[in-house]
């Protein structure tokens, strides 16, 4: 029975590092942590950074390395956004957990420091009130617990909490770092990836190793053990350059209706508009024949639109607005009509 469990896990879980030293290259983070792991004296910590860069992995690895598998259950409390049900529950859960004194039990080979660890993953989705309530809890139990906060957006963590922690920023992973971890997985799974495919994989996953691993696994299932650069591109859903170029061409025609048709087609093809606009920006910036002033105007629009999309704006209307403003910029038409 038991071996079935890992088998049915996607590769991202299968290849989640269990040791801090295997966490690919969050250099500074790993160095500091390896030191503190030896002395077993940890501060409260705050990990923040974009998805798939190793935050959760690192926190879990630290916990395992400190306590070992047997003590883990009694010493580590992992709470995430899906457990968080308002201030009261969090507070009682944490109190109940922290208030039970740590035993003196030790496991050979593990530092087993005399405190418990509370991992609050996805802390950025906690309300301010809940965070404020935590402040006091942290103080009350500061002798016997260490808190780990993990989040994507540090700005969502209230200052008094953040200032009590050692902060670690997890950066998008560099191409080299990604490649070495990917190579490791390729070895384990007997996959063949040439240099070009490897660099493509890093490029399309934009520093998110989880995404890279998912692409790799999907490509392996679809194309077998020899994987090329174009295989990876096809599973990643990157928007083909042609699509972006023909949008610009439509704008250059100066005809609103032509641009509208193109926009409708892009939407019908299901391309994610936020991604499309990032690629559109590249094309605009690198177009030699567009004067800087016009570029600036288009880029400004793209920036505004990106924000609107984050706020949940309609994709079609936003893209149409961008196309329309691009036409107006290219033909030096004023932004608002004057009659």
């Amino acid at each position, binding site marked *: 029975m038991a071996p079935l469990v890992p088998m049915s896990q*996607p590769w991202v879980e299968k290849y989640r590092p269990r040791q801090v030293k295997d966490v690919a290259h969050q250099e500074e983070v790993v160095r500091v942590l390896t030191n503190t792991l030896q002395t077993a004296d940890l501060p409260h910590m705050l990990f923040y950074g974009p998805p798939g860069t190793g935050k959760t992995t690192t926190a879990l690895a630290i916990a395992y390395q400190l306590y070992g598998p047997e003590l883990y259950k009694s010493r580590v409390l992992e709470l*995430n*956004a*899906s457990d968080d049900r308002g201030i009261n529950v969090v507070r009682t859960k944490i109190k109940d957990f922290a208030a039970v004194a740590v035993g003196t039990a030790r496991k050979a080979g593990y530092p087993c420091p005399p405190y418990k660890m509370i991992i609050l993953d996805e802390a950025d989705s906690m309300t301010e009130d809940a965070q404020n309530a935590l402040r006091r809890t942290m103080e009350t139990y500061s002798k016997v617990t260490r808190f780990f906060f993990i989040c994507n957006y540090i700005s969502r963590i209230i200052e008094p909490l953040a200032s009590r922690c050692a902060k670690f920023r997890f950066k998008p992973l560099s191409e080299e770092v990604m490649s070495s971890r990917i190579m490791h997985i390729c070895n384990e799974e007997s996959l063949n990836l040439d240099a070009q495919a490897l660099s493509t994989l890093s490029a399309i996953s934009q520093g998110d190793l989880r995404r890279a691993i998912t692409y790799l696994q999907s490509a392996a299932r679809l194309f077998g053990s020899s994987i090329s650069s174009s295989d990876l591109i096809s599973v990643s859903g990157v928007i083909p350059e042609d699509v972006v170029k023909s949008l610009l061409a439509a704008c250059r025609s100066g005809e609103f209706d032509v641009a509208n048709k193109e926009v409708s087609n892009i939407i019908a093809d299901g391309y994610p508009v936020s991604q499309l606009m990032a690629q559109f920006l590249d094309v605009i910036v690198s177009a030699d024949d567009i004067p800087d002033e016009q570029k600036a105007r288009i880029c400004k629009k793209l920036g505004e639109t990106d924000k609107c999309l984050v706020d949940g704006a309609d*994709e*079609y209307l936003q893209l149409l607005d961008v196309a329309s403003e691009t036409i107006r910029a290219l033909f030096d038409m004023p932004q608002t009509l004057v009659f």
Partner: protein
Amino acid sequence: MLWVDKYRPKTLDKVTVHDQVAQNLRKLVSEQDCPHLLFYGPSGSGKKTLILALIKQMFGAGAEKVKMENKTWKIDTGTRTLEIELAMLSSAHHVEMNPSDAGFQDRYVVQEVIKEMAKNRPIDAKGKRAFKVLVLNEVDKLSREAQHSLRRTMEKYSASCRLILCCNSSSKVTEAVRSRCLNVRVNAPSEDQIVQVLEIIGKKENLHLPAGFAARIAAQSNRNLRRAILFFETCKVQQYPFASNQVAPPLDWEQYVSEIATDILTEQSPKRLYAVRQKFYELLVNCIPPESILKKLLTELLKKLDADLKHEICHWAAHYALCMQEHKMRLGSKAIFHLEAFVAKFMSIYKEFLVATFG
């Protein structure tokens, strides 16, 4: 049974329009370890068909024995107990639901359902899959909180619960959730592909299609396959044998919006604005989504406007659609204000234009 359901391909081999995607999916689930999936693409493009066929591929015919229930969750928030009721479709192997229907409480639903499924994890017998599949529809409509609370849960229970997420616009799904899935784009079929599907259905129904008939329906459907098939069936009901120039009648609500467009193009006055408001109310009480109303209205207006005005009006449509969205988040849906504000804006611009042009 409606043709849209009757002629829905049941297995991945039978999927005609997205055959390449279908083949890929089959390979993807050939092992037990496939990643979570996020299907995205415009409405009526065939996501649901692919997902159902995929589940059948994974679990066999057992996944087709579904029951529909209204499930009630009791959720203890610490201060009070919430009761949330939601329709749910389930088989022995999968559960399908639309958590955004729970409104502001959506996050409790996604939290609970995954944990519950993980608890009742199927025992692996004879090479059957050791996980269940949870299909969540319209994830782009989930609140940020609900999406956030999916993050760690998706990882933690990935051995026992595999997620298939489905949405129209993947830009509205947070990056952290997208990062946890293989993203599968399902494009709307081209008009040619729609014609093919219609012809196949015509054949099976023993219908004679006059030349150009299928192409006309396809053109009318805006690359929405579901719509095309519905139009086709409507035509059949309307008149058979088909007339050589027969077209499907436009949808009622769309017809209504075209009338609004004509109204505001012919007269710009407070009185007209008031009359239009009544029409918006009518549409909204019939559950037509306000974004769709605004988009359709824009399309109709664009047909009639001067080039310069088109730019201006499309900008304001985008603007008020966003206001509508932000409003919904904060205060509950008072979409009518924004529809009305758009019309008022249009009237003032258009009037100014008329005066400047014709004096």
